[in-house]
């Protein structure tokens, strides 16, 4: 106990010293530097946008005055920001299949045990570059790496805004984030568990459809429009059913659509409330041409359908507290439910039939995320998510019926972000978070799985 207290006192002293050292830090995030606005003008807490930031984004990264065109910038201005997060984290999973005794032999008896690991680590590195090429013509390019510096293009897009002088007609083309009002790319939590919205990626156990993940950036074209003050918004996107992967690796002719609409309401002292809906409707292949029995990339045919839809609510209770809500109803074709969709190893070649009892997996989910904004420099975050499968892929007539609760997921996360300074030059947050997830019957031996992660780190961009 005494040792614990010493450790605690030591860690707090270290924390104070570290925060003190960073009071005078200075940096240049791209948009804030261009317009001379503090991070807090556009972000509830960076990177999450507030209403003003959402309007700025919807206007094609423009404030809609005469300083938008890059000709107004000093020629040395270069709109680049990088972001990385050195962390310490502790990860725990209560049902990891292991050999009973460590061995080099195969086939030894196994058991499920808790596995915990902790240590210092890194996030990936993002290079954000975006802005206007000319008034009403903008771009965004985001090379992003994992924590081993293996890069891919997370976002690459060009935008034409205010076509025909109207904010109701804007077009983006390339790879981009879907028009999710609660943006996963701007999520305030960073752990492996809490760093994504489960609702945006949920898939029933054994389901082969990974094309319907609304949290992933997608390749396609989007038309969106909004009123001058952004109270009313709509968007419609046509996407390749590739989940954002380049090189057309799947269907030869498979597309999805993503549609949103929302309306905000002025509620006086409470702020601006917004409600809306989204729907993703698409199809993706389950059959691939083969060579030597191996599926040929890009040759997918035999498209099957899927859809996800739900409501979005952003509710503000004054300047300090808000709740964001997203619901989802999801449905996948029965072929996806049996694991088809990604090519190998399951390919619905001619003659393949669905097993008896196969049915379309269906589920419902919801996420609630609350923020208490003590000041622009300090935000507390809490999130609860629940996903419930209402119809399993293997029904009661199946030879191997699935339990009704298989794959049901519950997750929550709590944390806070403290920005020791708030300028228009840099973002720096001391981040502390705890996330927990429970999944029914998904371990190797069919037990419930509990995972958790504690994370402490410096999240900064420059």
């Amino acid at each position, binding site marked *: 106990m005494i040792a614990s207290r010493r450790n*605690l006192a030591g860690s707090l002293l270290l924390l104070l010293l570290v925060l003190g050292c960073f009071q005078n830090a200075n940096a240049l995030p791209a948009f804030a530097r261009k317009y001379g*606005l503090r991070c807090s003008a556009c972000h509830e807490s960076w990177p999450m946008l507030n209403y003003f930031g959402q309007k700025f984004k919807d206007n094609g990264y423009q404030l809609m005055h005469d300083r938008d065109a890059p000709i107004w910038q000093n020629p040395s201005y270069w709109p680049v920001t990088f972001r990385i997060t050195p962390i310490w984290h502790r990860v725990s999973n209560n049902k990891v299949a292991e050999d009973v005794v460590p061995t080099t032999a195969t086939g030894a008896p196994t058991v499920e045990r808790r596995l915990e690991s902790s240590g210092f680590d890194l996030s990936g590195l993002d290079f954000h570059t975006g802005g206007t090429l000319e008034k009403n013509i903008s771009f965004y390019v985001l090379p992003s790496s994992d924590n081993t510096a293996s890069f891919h293009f997370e976002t690459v897009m060009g935008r034409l805004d205010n076509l025909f002088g109207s904010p109701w007609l804007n077009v983006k083309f390339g790879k981009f984030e879907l028009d999710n009002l609660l943006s996963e790319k701007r999520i305030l939590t960073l752990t492996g568990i809490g760093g994504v919205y489960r609702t945006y990626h949920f898939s029933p156990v054994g389901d082969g459809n990974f094309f319907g993940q609304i949290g992933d950036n997608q390749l396609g074209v989007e038309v969106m429009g909004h009123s001058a003050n952004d109270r009313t918004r709509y968007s419609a996107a046509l996407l390749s059913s590739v989940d954002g992967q380049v090189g057309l690796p799947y269907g030869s002719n498979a597309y999805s659509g993503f549609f949103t609409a929302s309306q905000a309401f002025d509620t006086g002292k409470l702020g601006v409330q917004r409600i809306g809906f989204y729907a993703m409707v698409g199809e993706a292949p389950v059959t691939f041409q083969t060579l030597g029995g191996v599926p040929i990339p890009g040759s997918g045919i035999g498209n099957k359908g899927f859809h996800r839809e739900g409501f979005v609510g952003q509710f503000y209770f004054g300047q300090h507290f808000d709740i964001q809500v997203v619901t989802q109803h999801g449905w996948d074709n029965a072929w996806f439910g049996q694991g088809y969709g990604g090519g190998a190893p399951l390919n619905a070649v001619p003659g393949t039939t669905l097993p008896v009892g196969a049915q379309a997996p269906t589920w419902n989910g919801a996420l609630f995320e609350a923020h208490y904004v003590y000041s622009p420099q300090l935000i507390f975050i809490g999130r609860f998510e629940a996903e419930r499968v209402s119809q399993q892929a293997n029904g009661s007539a199946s030879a191997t019926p699935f339990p009704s609760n298989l794959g049901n997921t519950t997750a929550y996360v709590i944390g806070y972000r403290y920005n020791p300074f708030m300028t228009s030059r840099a973002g720096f947050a001391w981040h502390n978070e705890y996330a927990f997830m429970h999944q029914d019957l998904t371990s190797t031996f069919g037990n419930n799985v509990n995972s958790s992660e504690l994370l402490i780190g410096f999240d900064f961009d420059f």
Partner: protein
Amino acid sequence: MRSKSFLQCSLLMSAAVVLALSLPARAQLSTVQLETWLNSPAATSHIGDITGNAKAAAPDYRRYCVGCHGEMGDGNGENTPWLDPKPRDFQLAVFKCRSTPTGTLPTDEDLFNTIARGLDRSNMPIWNTFTKDERADLVAWIKHFSPRWQNEKAGAPIQIPPEPEVTPERVKAGQEVFGRVQCWKCHGVEGMANGPSAATLTDDLGRPILPYNFTDGSRPKCGETDRDIYKIFMTGLDGTPMPSFADNIKPDEAWDLVFYLRTLQPHNPFNAKEKQIAKQLGLKPVSPQ
């Protein structure tokens, strides 16, 4: 188990420390005088049936405004060195966009509208994302920076007669006014902000300032409607070289001038009729002679 409770304890304790560290930042605005004023009836604004409360605006001011206008409202935020024109110094309580006579304080509604409209040719964004109540709160907050608001009342809005019909005679008369009161000296004979005095203009603080260019398509600072333009030269833009012409131009002449100025704006969507008249008349730029 001990390890787990230690971690939970650390999480809570570090959160508490961070909370404590963030307090001084808020205290920068919390002087005794400010607290007294915030609790007084004067710390309000009134726009129609909306009452703004200064106390409620403090978080918004810190979040959105302080980077340019500064903690003390003196227009000396951290970004000020890089901005041109400089942000408004609320301590002076001198405002360009008013409906009130020159030298007087603006109405609450004037400030309310300026926040929502933004100011083109400056870094002031269009803050129409606020609710009306939030904007009214900010108006009340802005007023605490200068003692003028405690000692003076806002001026009475000027009377604007109804807008007459645009006619060729009125456009020609407007051009005569443009020449007579020498608008061209700053704005240029074609409204291109290149008059003989343009390069020498400074604001009240001695900083260089440019006259408005009617031809480049930018929005007038204080609003785009004919009434807004009328107000500009009948109230002046206080703090700038643009004077009030209320003593030199009759109300009817002011409307004539509005119609003529519309002919100088090739990109304005509201002036089709004025441009057509100018074309019919074969209107030539005024002569400096």
